């Protein structure tokens, strides 16, 4: 089987509003940094994948066409991939498959969203059936809050445990030069913060950001010419419908399936012991708790205990989101790719102030919806 690796990654400085750049300027900024990181130029890139959220976010349809000139991608294959919150990872998976299928040797994936431009919750609410439920929709937040309450009752994912996620990720984001939000918060601050969709409170929620990320993926021969490739040992992305019958919404089936497949590909039987560092996409704090269980870092119902134990802190035995995760920045279309970029930089030893010492095997998770779109990847400094 042919191997694929991340050979370069870059991201923008994220902010609530970047008035200095348009959507295309934002995407270019990340692409230029990824090319510099990989010591490559656009001449070395065979194919470009653009990954962004719904076009209603920023009112430009087929934005990939607009990006072609700005990326220097004239007359190269350029397509757009989109899949809810996990868009960036879906884009990376398309790139991996282009390489494995022999279509390209090196692929540039550029993911971004400029969320300052539109009406976020309104746009997200349009994913509901226009006949049935849209009149009550509150983006994905009302829905997520409702099932977090259910998980509280069944799995003990308490407000206090979620607050610890917020405290940890905010603190880690202080180390991240690209983070949009850099401020320390306490458990008391989180619990006392304004309810938005109770039990979700203001400090359970990441910022809304303008930002972009770019990753360069390469096939085995091309990757060998890179000094420090991050080999993709497994990558998967699964989905299911949201309104199907008999869905409990308590554990995510797509996450379980994706993790099983990726662990099998990567030869991982005990992720807690075999993985050195984890990056997850937490749209709200309660999601990170459920990922601990879905990824097998602890048994179902064990997430609160895991965060309380300190194991997922940056100096714990299984650090989760040393970059600060979404709490540092959340440009939705880019967020999943940022998780892949961060985990790749960890195993390449390029994670700067939040580098986990000797990180060799990294695990990342991304997805969208409350439970219905979930992707997982394992990267390592050695190949299969």
């Amino acid at each position, binding site marked *: 089987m042919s191997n694929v690796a991340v050979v370069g990654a870059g991201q923008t400085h994220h902010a609530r*509003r970047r*008035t*200095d*750049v*348009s*959507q*295309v*300027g*934002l995407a*270019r900024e990340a692409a230029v940094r990824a090319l510099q990181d990989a010591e490559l130029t*656009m001449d070395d890139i065979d194919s470009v994948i653009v990954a962004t959220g719904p076009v*209603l976010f*920023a*009112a430009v349809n087929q934005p990939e066409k607009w990006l*072609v*000139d*700005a990326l*220097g991608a*004239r007359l190269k294959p350029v397509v757009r991939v989109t899949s809810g919150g996990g868009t960036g990872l879906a884009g990376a998976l398309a790139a991996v498959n282009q390489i494995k299928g022999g279509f390209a040797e090196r692929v540039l994936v550029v993911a971004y969203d*400029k969320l*300052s*431009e*539109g*009406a*976020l*919750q*309104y746009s997200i*609410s*349009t994913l*509901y*059936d*226009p*006949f*049935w*439920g849209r*009149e*009550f*929709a*509150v*983006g994905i937040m*009302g*829905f997520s*809050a*409702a*099932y*977090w*309450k*259910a998980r509280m*009752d069944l799995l003990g994912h308490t407000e206090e445990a979620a607050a610890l996620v917020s405290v940890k990720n905010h603190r880690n984001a202080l180390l991240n030069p690209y983070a949009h939000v850099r401020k320390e918060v306490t458990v008391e601050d989180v619990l006392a913060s*304004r*309810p*938005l*969709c*109770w*039990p979700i409170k203001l400090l359970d929620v990441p910022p809304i950001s303008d930002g972009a990320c770019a990753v360069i993926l390469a096939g085995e021969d091309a990757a060998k010419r890179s000094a420090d490739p991050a080999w993709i040992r497994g990558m998967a992305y699964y989905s299911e*419908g949201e*309104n*199907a*019958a*008999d869905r409990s919404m308590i554990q995510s089936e797509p996450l379980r399936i994706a993790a099983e497949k990726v662990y099998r590909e990567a030869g991982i039987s005990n992720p807690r012991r075999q993985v050195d560092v984890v990056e997850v996409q937490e749209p709200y704090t309660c999601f990170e708790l459920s990922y601990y269980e879905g990824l097998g870092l602890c048994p179902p119902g064990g997430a609160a205990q895991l965060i309380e134990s300190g194991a997922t802190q940056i100096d714990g035995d299984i650090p989760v989101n040393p970059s600060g995760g979404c709490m540092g920045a959340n440009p939705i279309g880019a967020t999943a790719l940022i998780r892949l970029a961060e985990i790749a930089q960890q195993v390449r030893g390029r994670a700067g102030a939040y580098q986990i010492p000797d990180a060799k095997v990294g695990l990342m998770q991304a997805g969208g919806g409350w439970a219905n779109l979930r992707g997982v990847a394992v990267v390592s400094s050695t190949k299969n």
Partner: protein
Amino acid sequence: MSQLFTSPDVPQVLTTTLSIPYTLTPGGAAGQFLAGLAERRILGSRCEPCARTVVPAQDVCGRCGEQTPDLVELPHGGTVTSWTAHQGRVVAKIRLDGADADLLHVVAAEPGAVEVGDRVAADWAAEPTGWITDLAAFTPGRARSGPAEATPVARAETSVEMVPYRLDLTYHHAYGPYYGRMFDELGSFSRLMGSRCSSCHRVLLPARAICDVCFARTDQFDEVSDTGVLQAFSVIHMEFVGQTRKPPYVYAEIVLDGSSTRLIHTVAGDFDLADAASTLSIGMKVKAVWKPESERVGTLEDIAYFEPVIP
């Protein structure tokens, strides 16, 4: 299956409009181009290695992909290279003097009076607004203002950083036979009808042709109770553009008795919303409170809310 859909009054099309406000960011050179229009200057960008000048100004040369740091101010006159008529207006590609690419704009002339090769000149809006229409149109004839040739200029100090914009998108969604019957039943008889799976006998609401669980066809409509179980809830305090009701209110997912699917609605009643978190509990029974008959329109909002059933 045809006997499932007998009513002649089945609704056909739901018309809805999304009205979404935006604040767009032109960014770098495009922002300076827009700011320039307010000063009656047309700014392009020049890529020296490619020897190409394009307008509006761009941050990046589309030919070589390199940044184009050099801005140029272009003459106000140009030549029509192609045109079409739309709603009685002439929309033309105009090659400004000194540019190597065309600018798309309106020519203020009758469609029959324009030809490729015609000379046109910029005509300016009386009151600039920071948008492309500050350059109101091109008019036939020679330019009476502007530089004689493309002239290099320093990066402008002023830039338009934000442009208000709005999308008003109207859609006509087809009900189809299942939703048609279901909403007809709701509108005519104030009852909720799901479709029943021919294999596993689950009743699915909203009604649909194929069961999600076993992929068999559904073969009959079954009435679903207007009482059910509260499967999940949250309390909405957040306000957002496009919201259909005023916070605070309860977002609720309810499994109606006799159905296997979630209904999204709201729970209210004889309790203070500030106490919703402690008053409501997952698994509690709830019952629909219907609006007065005169206020029903055949949508889910005919149910004003669900209220807790106190045993």
